[in-house]
């Protein structure tokens, strides 16, 4: 029972409390580079999920066989293998998306989120928790990417998944799908999250003082 609850906690923590992009600020390069449309963001999220879950699976299985001194190198080789598979698969199944994402699929190798999870979690835990941690983290990553991608696509081209939302009278805010838009959107999102957190803390503080007064 206890292990089940632990697995569940490992699964949900990546979604919000330790969200890789918004809270830990990991894996930012792909998070900003490919989120100029919702579909690209989703494809990137799925590819990262595949790589993260696959390498967590292998690393967790092999964790007692990997010598401590060369563990980082081993992790990188494992990750690079999965990325190569993802790269070729995407090239075969969705050549258009692959062309859009370009070198960024290959750059999943150096996504600090993936190496970080191997080092901090998969290499120290059994298969079950390692897998749920990997799923949770990649789900959080995909959601964050999708959020950024949708906001930028709606504002920057007035469409969602390529379907026009506002009709021809909409004047697109082109800067949002260009590089500066990525920085600005993430900055504003982080600001909103900080504001929400601050408000929640203030509300907690005021209720606790009220309780004390009562």
């Amino acid at each position, binding site marked *: 029972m206890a292990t089940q609850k632990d697995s569940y906690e490992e699964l949900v923590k990546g979604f919000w409390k330790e969200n890789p992009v918004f809270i830990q600020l990991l894996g930012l*390069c*792909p998070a900003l580079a490919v989120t100029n449309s919702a579909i690209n963001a989703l494809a990137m999220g799925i590819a990262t999920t595949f790589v993260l879950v696959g390498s967590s699976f292998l690393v967790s299985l092999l964790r007692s066989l990997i010598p401590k001194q060369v563990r980082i190198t081993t992790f990188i080789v494992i990750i690079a293998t999965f990325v190569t598979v993802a790269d070729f698969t995407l090239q075969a199944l969705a050549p258009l998306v692959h062309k859009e994402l370009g*070198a960024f699929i*290959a*750059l999943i190798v150096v996504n600090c989120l993936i190496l970080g999870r191997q080092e901090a979690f998969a290499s120290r835990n059994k298969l079950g928790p390692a897998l749920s941690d990997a799923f949770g983290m990649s789900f959080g990553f995909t959601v964050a990417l999708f959020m950024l991608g949708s906001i930028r696509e709606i504002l920057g081209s007035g469409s969602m998944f390529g379907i026009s939302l506002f009709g021809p009278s909409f004047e697109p805010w082109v*800067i949002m799908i260009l*590089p*500066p838009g990525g920085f600005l959107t993430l900055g504003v999102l982080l600001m909103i999250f900080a504001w929400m957190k601050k408000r929640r803390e203030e509300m907690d503080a005021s209720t606790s003082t009220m309780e004390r007064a009562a």
Partner: protein
Amino acid sequence: MSGELTIQNLVWIFVAASVVNNFTLSYFLGLCPFLGVSGRIDTALRMGMANIFVMLVTSICAWFLNSFVLPHAPYLRLISFIVVIASTVQFVEMAIKKLSPDLFKALGIFLPLITTNCAILGLALFQTNRAYGFVEGIVFALGAGVGVTLALVLMAGVREENELASVPEVLRGAAMSFLIAGILSLAFMGFAGLFSGSA
């Protein structure tokens, strides 16, 4: 090949890599060090120098792998890039430590850290995609390195000033850094106009 080897062509590659398609501000490569070590100008400058250096080494490694090893086994591209670049940088680091302790001190901890930076692997991959030759690759690496240094130093300058300003509490930290980076990136967009002129 992306054109014949003329001075004009090389200058164009350099300008394109350093300002028009700045690695940090328009390709979002190497954001972790960009946000991590851009607190002070002198650290930023050293980080940039180390970056230029590793990029040059990477470019030579990638050219070598592309011309002699990878035609036989293209599916090993990623793995061999990473392993070869990381180990070469380690060797070069040892050599510098022995030959020129001053330079080693100046680059410091940044040298090994840079190896796992996405800008480095990105450089190798872009160079491969565009089929640059040896000289073009080196010029491309120099341009990219100068571009990253420029972005780092500019960012550090703005952030040093920003320390003294009174920023709203919710904006402090990462959010403010991203907004500054967004504005810098906006400024670099201005260089995009160079494209139509020379391309």
